[in-house]
């Protein structure tokens, strides 16, 4: 019988310590399996073994109609499910040449940015927990809970919303939406100062992250890293800036770039991105255009024969949707480019030669969501 560990044992040099981190391990945040070759505490090699939560989502989507398959994608990167759904909706609209009403576009951008903030908040807490501080996790959940409540009111659910549909959004904003978001903005502004007090300025945290897991700009590009991981190394890769979708071209926001390339740079990118998302929300919340929230579409969608691709910036990086259509009601072939997979591939490069504690810090800074990697 094929056993992965046998193969690893055979190729190892005698005297190395081989540890299986995961699939059940507190800080792999899911069922990721890393086979680590150690020399004492120093890491010599890391081999990620994937597939423990492979649900063949791409194949599943081929049997679902264009309206139905969007929902399944929210189970991939469940922390930015809105943005995944949005990417799929964009690809379908791109194929059908649907014009999305301005109100729907504004709502989509608002939801995306709220999702990004919620995702980064969870990452902040989980990253702190990986490094050993347990308190920030609960503080992060306090703010995330407010965003979840906002989602619950408008979208009906808290995690996998299925709110973005081809042609717009599923329902109009809840009447309370603006009020709740306006309550959230000052609350979060006061709490992000505490985030800095608790973690960013902490000398132990800085020592644990500065100069750890360095990846240069060139290497980040060659490993295909996107999102905060690449931007922490100074790569301009924000899809919202490079290839603006919806109304992002009309909004004022900065692409966050840090040049350190280490865990702390990636940490700072996400911390500053939260503030940028907040400013985008502040710009939009008072000027949501009136009008339809959904364009008129046919009951059964049929994409024309051809290939369609659209990309979107999730909280973890560039998410791509590639649809091959034969003209039927279901996609002929579908492929998702998930940010987590490419970011994970750089883990071995980053962590070689560092300690076990560093590996955990690096994994935390990559912000891995395992279902996104395995799909």
């Amino acid at each position: 019988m094929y056993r992965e560990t046998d193969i690893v044992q055979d190729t190892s040099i005698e005297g190395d310590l081989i540890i299986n981190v995961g699939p059940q391990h507190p800080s792999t945040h899911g069922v990721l399996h890393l086979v680590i070759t150690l020399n004492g505490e120093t890491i010599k090699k890391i081999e990620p073994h994937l597939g423990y939560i492979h649900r063949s989502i791409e194949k599943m989507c081929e049997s679902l109609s264009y309206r139905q398959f969007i929902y399944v994608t929210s189970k991939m990167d469940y922390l930015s499910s809105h943005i995944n759904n949005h990417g799929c909706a964009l690809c379908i609209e791109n194929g059908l040449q649907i014009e999305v009403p301005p109100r729907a576009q504004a709502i989509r951008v608002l939801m995306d940015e709220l999702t990004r903030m919620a995702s980064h908040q969870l990452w902040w807490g989980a990253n702190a927990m990986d490094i050993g501080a347990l308190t920030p996790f609960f503080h992060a959940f306090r703010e995330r809970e407010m965003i979840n409540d906002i989602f619950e009111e408008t979208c009906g659910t808290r995690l996998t919303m299925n709110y973005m549909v081809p042609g717009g959004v599923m329902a109009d904003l809840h009447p309370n939406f603006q009020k709740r978001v306006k309550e959230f903005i000052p609350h979060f502004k006061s709490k992000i100062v505490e985030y800095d007090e608790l973690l960013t300025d902490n000398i132990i945290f800085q020592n644990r992250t500065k100069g750890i897991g360095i990846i240069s700009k060139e290497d980040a590009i060659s490993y295909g890293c996107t999102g905060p991981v690449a931007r922490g190394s100074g790569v301009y890769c924000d899809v919202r800036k490079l290839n603006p979708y919806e109304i992002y071209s009309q909004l004022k926001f900065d692409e966050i770039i840090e040049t350190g390339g280490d865990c702390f740079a990636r940490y700072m990118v996400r911390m500053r991105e939260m503030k940028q998302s907040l400013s985008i929300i502040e710009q939009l919340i008072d000027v949501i255009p009136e009008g339809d929230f959904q364009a008129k579409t046919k009951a059964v969608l049929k994409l024309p024969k051809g290939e369609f691709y659209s990309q979107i910036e999730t909280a973890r990086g560039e998410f791509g949707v590639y649809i091959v259509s034969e003209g039927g009601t279901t996609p002929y072939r579908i492929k998702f480019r998930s940010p987590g997979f490419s970011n994970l591939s750089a883990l071995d490069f980053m962590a070689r030669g560092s300690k076990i504690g560093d590996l955990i810090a690096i994994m935390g800074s990559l912000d891995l969501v395992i279902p996104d990697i395995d799909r």
Partner: protein
Amino acid sequence: MPSLENIADIIHTWLNITFNSTTALLIELVIVAVSAIGLFSMLGLILIMMERKVSAYMQVRLGPNRVGPKGMFQTVADTLKLMVKEGMTPNGADKFLFNLAPFIVMIVAMVILAPLAFAKNFQLWDLNIGILFVASVSSVSVIGILMAGWASNNKYSLLGAMRSGAQIVSYELSAGLSIITIVILTGSLKISTIIQSQSDGWWIFKGHIPALIAFVIFIIAVTAETNRAPFDLAEAESELTAGFHTEYSGMKFALFFLAEYVNIFIVCVLGATLFLGGWMPLHFGTDTRFNELMDYIPSSLWLFGKTFFLIFIIMWFRWTFPRLRIDQLLNLEWKYLLPISMFNLLLTTLMAIMGWHF
């Protein structure tokens, strides 16, 4: 007013009247053993409850609040659960060492209890090298941890045990040096003498800045020695799952857990004894009314109050700070704490010779 000293005296005289002296001594030994074990189990329950409540409030949670009034019996329920759980021994483990390790850790914690003074004239064994005894016996506990890590036949446990070995051995240095600071000022290793020397003021006030520095270093070093966060590398939950006690379950795990908390208690009693005057009440200069009021509070309460204050500070550390990496941990010891405490020792010696302290 009944104090612990009076109770002990009453029991002692009654036993000596009723039985002959040998039997009385044997009965006293049994009473001491039972009360030590009782103290341990009570400490385990109270400290774990305290830790859970402290962490809950710092994490904007409520904490345990279902079992009993305000959740006070939660730890009792947990202990019951651990008692009825199966204590498994892994197949590849060294069975003898694996089962021995938790008891070694526990026995070490119990032995250190002997020279500690819990109240005025209430001490099991006031030997003349009390502090030295505590410092030397406490370093035996690392053997128990190494044993557990090695015998578990688990790579995580082994890594945790090795980390713990390096950590405890190096942090003993600065803990020892800060203890010596007080020994220099007092001129005695006997715990009762150390406490007596603080009758006109605690060392942390009398000893100027050197005593303060020694106190801070002592707290940091004992936090590391008891494997508490931010120095909990031996357990390092997010790195090594549970470190040296990954493979333990049931009551054997509970013994490790209990030993951790008892060790915290012991080092905090030691800290209170050395720096905060042990059972000595707080006295302010010549304000006799205030001093009399302070004397009215029983001496055991003074000691426990000070101890729990120190325990709270150590818990506060745990729930605020991230964990250090193993090389940073050793850097902190060898590059910062040790040079500072060496320098501090010189300063204290100078101060003691010149008689600058009060």
